[in-house]
């Protein structure tokens, strides 16, 4: 008799857009044990299905939506899923994790994953209501923003359907566009330009609804364990509940872990106070958003009730947006940042890319890399709020100078050459999130080696240089953030750890309080799925999945030459702030990293490692 897989739905839904057909495929125990789910399933299917030389915007690419075995369960903060394909922005592995409620609904409809192949001839939206799957015309929906589309599609499908969609930027295949869920809550799979993949496939949205109950191996024990852990998770994450990720603005600025003036300066104390999570709470907060089963509620519900932006309401800016719109562009006005954030959400673009691209433009204009001929006759000056908003709109609408920026840094560098490259803060084509690698040596090596390009979420290694340990991963003590030795190993271990969370799919914020450890995850996973999971199994899965993505990137031409950071980070100390003089010794740390990973000196996984991981 076939073994049931507990909280896995047990099926993957495949939709062939070219031929307007769909079918399902069973999730086997072998696949589940080897690849976990979420990010792990993404690694397996993208590597298997998408040729390394495929055009990311062509029919050969897939767009996959992958829940984890814990998505949709009462496990705290498990309302996440991963969206993946080959990235049109970077030309390599592309992945973005997102919260909200859509993943739970896909699981409720009876599927662990949805994989879109081919491309539609005309704009469509997909309606999944358990075993009824329809591909419908979206001719009347094309052009509608990500906030307004939710209600329109719910009117056409089911009032409780969850909607995953692209905005106008994704329709125009902006390479910095993302995939959005939860309407006004603006939950975003922002990175890697996956909105453009949906746009190329002409898929405006995917509506899902279902009430198929999840099966648990041992529900009573699981619920008791969750009940026991939840108060501690809430208590440890109280700061996130009160201030959201915006609560990081003040401490990150203080320790030099904050972008200032396109990453040229190290301190912005007065500005940080004006745009902090406390200022956001005191002036604009009206409530909080929770992803499904979330014990924290870090999402900010804001409203502006007077002034130029009166009437704005919805999702407030996250730390990343505050850092890159605020510190990097020198915009010290919270209302301007909130409005810019809302525009990005509605157009459906990644605020990290937008913030970096506008900061780049301000520096490029100052240095003569771009001129009024490029900018439509305008001065692009640091901290200019009106220009900032104009550029956000142009990027979202893919027009004027914004049309160039909307293709991301690789496109900008192609147009403006070496001088532009020198002030582009990217790794592998993906721009930096709002954490400074000069403030954390482990983060420098983590950015350089992250599979999707510069990414803090693939490691969160800097947390282990502040106040976090993970004995199961062999990280027994907090280490000096400016030390060199051990940082390659720390980056690799934390990358493997984060893959576990992205695969089961749980929010990493539950881990930062030290309550949800790999031991706890293994226990909950075993109780939910009925498959035996040890901590060692999970760690090996994490390593396997990370390496599988690396192998895909190697096929795309990635090697040590690409595992690097801009000269600004490696050669220019900022001279001020909490990490004024540190420069990360990247090459030495890379040697340690490769050695620990079992990769050769060019960063290629060696045969022994590949065989050991069953790849």
């Amino acid at each position, binding site marked *: 008799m076939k073994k049931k897989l507990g909280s896995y739905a047990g099926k993957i839904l495949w939709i062939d857009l070219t031929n307007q057909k769909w079918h399902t495929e069973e999730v086997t125990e072998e696949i589940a044990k080897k690849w976990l789910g979420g990010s792990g399933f993404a690694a397996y299917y993208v590597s298997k299905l998408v040729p390394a030389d495929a055009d990311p915007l062509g029919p050969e690419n897939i767009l996959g939506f992958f829940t984890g075995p814990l998505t949709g369960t009462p496990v705290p903060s498990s309302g996440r899923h991963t969206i993946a394909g080959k990235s049109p922005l970077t030309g390599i592995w592309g992945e973005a994790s997102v919260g909200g409620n859509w993943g739970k609904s896909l699981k409720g409809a009876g599927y662990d994953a949805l994989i879109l192949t081919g491309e539609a001839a005309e704009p469509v939206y997909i309606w999944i209501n358990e075993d009824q799957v329809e591909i419908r015309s979206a001719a009347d929906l094309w052009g509608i923003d990500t906030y307004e589309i939710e209600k329109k599609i719910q009117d056409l499908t089911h009032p409780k359907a969850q909607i995953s969609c692209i905005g106008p930027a994704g329709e125009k295949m902006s390479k910095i566009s993302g995939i959005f869920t939860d309407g006004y809550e603006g939950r975003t799979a922002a990175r890697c330009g996956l909105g453009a993949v949906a746009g190329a496939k002409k898929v405006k949205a995917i509506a899902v609804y279902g009430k198929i109950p999840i099966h648990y191996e041992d529900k009573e024990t699981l619920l008791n364990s969750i009940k026991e852990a939840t108060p501690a998770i809430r208590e440890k994450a*109280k700061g*996130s509940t009160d201030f959201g*990720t915006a609560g990081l603005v003040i*401490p990150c600025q*203080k320790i030099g872990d904050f972008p200032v003036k396109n990453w040229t300066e190290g301190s912005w104390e007065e500005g940080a106070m004006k745009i902090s999570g406390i200022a956001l709470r005191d002036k604009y907060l009206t409530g909080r958003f929770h992803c499904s089963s979330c014990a924290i509620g870090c999402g900010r519900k804001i409203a502006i009730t007077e002034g130029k932006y009166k009437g704005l309401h919805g999702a407030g800016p996250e730390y990343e947006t505050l850092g890159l719109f605020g510190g990097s562009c020198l915009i010290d006005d919270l209302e301007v940042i909130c409005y810019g954030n809302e525009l990005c959400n509605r157009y459906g673009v990644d605020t990290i890319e937008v913030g970096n691209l506008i900061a780049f433009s301000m520096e490029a204009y100052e240095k003569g890399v771009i001129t009024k001929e490029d900018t439509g006759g305008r001065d692009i000056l640091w901290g200019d709020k009106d220009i900032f908003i104009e550029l956000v709109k142009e990027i979202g609408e893919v027009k004027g100078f914004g049309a160039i920026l909307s293709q991301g840094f690789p496109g900008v560098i192609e147009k403006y050459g070496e001088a532009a490259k020198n002030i582009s803060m990217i790794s592998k084509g993906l721009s930096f999130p709002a*954490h400074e690698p000069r403030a954390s040596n482990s983060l420098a090596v983590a950015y350089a080696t992250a599979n999707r390009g510069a990414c803090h979420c693939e490691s969160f290694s800097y947390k282990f240089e502040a*106040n976090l340990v993970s004995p199961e991963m062999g990280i027994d003590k907090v280490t*000096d953030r400016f030390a060199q030795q051990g940082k390659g190993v720390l980056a690799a271990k934390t990358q493997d750890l984060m893959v576990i969370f992205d695969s089961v799919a749980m929010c990493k*914020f539950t881990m930062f309080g030290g309550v949800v450890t790999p031991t706890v995850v293994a226990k909950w996973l075993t109780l939910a799925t009925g498959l035996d999971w040890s901590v060692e199994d999970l760690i090996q899965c994490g390593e396997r999945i990370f390496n599988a993505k690396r192998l895909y990137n190697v096929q795309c031409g990635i090697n040590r030459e690409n595992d690097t950071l801009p000269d600004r980070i490696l050669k220019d100390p900022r001279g001020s702030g909490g990490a004024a003089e540190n420069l990360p010794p990247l090459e030495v740390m890379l040697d340690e990293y490769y050695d620990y990973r079992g990769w050769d000196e060019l960063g290629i996984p060696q045969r022994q490692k590949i065989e050991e991981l069953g790849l």
Partner: protein
Amino acid sequence: MKISVKLFPPLKFEDGTQKKSLEVKEDTDVCDLLALLEYQCILDPYGKDALLILIDGKMAQHSTVLMDAQTVEVLLFVAGG
């Protein structure tokens, strides 16, 4: 010995101020200081583990021993990022 303590928002002393000079015993470490501060300022409800401690601008751990005339800065370091 005497040290300076600076709290960053939302943390503050009970009298609403954010900077104080404190007299502490020799060999006081960060953990001892935080225990002392619990009675003098608003650290709750965030808890000691959620705090980032800087001594003269450098990150410190709970076991770090304080020296005379040092400045200790205390910040809430929320989960997330």
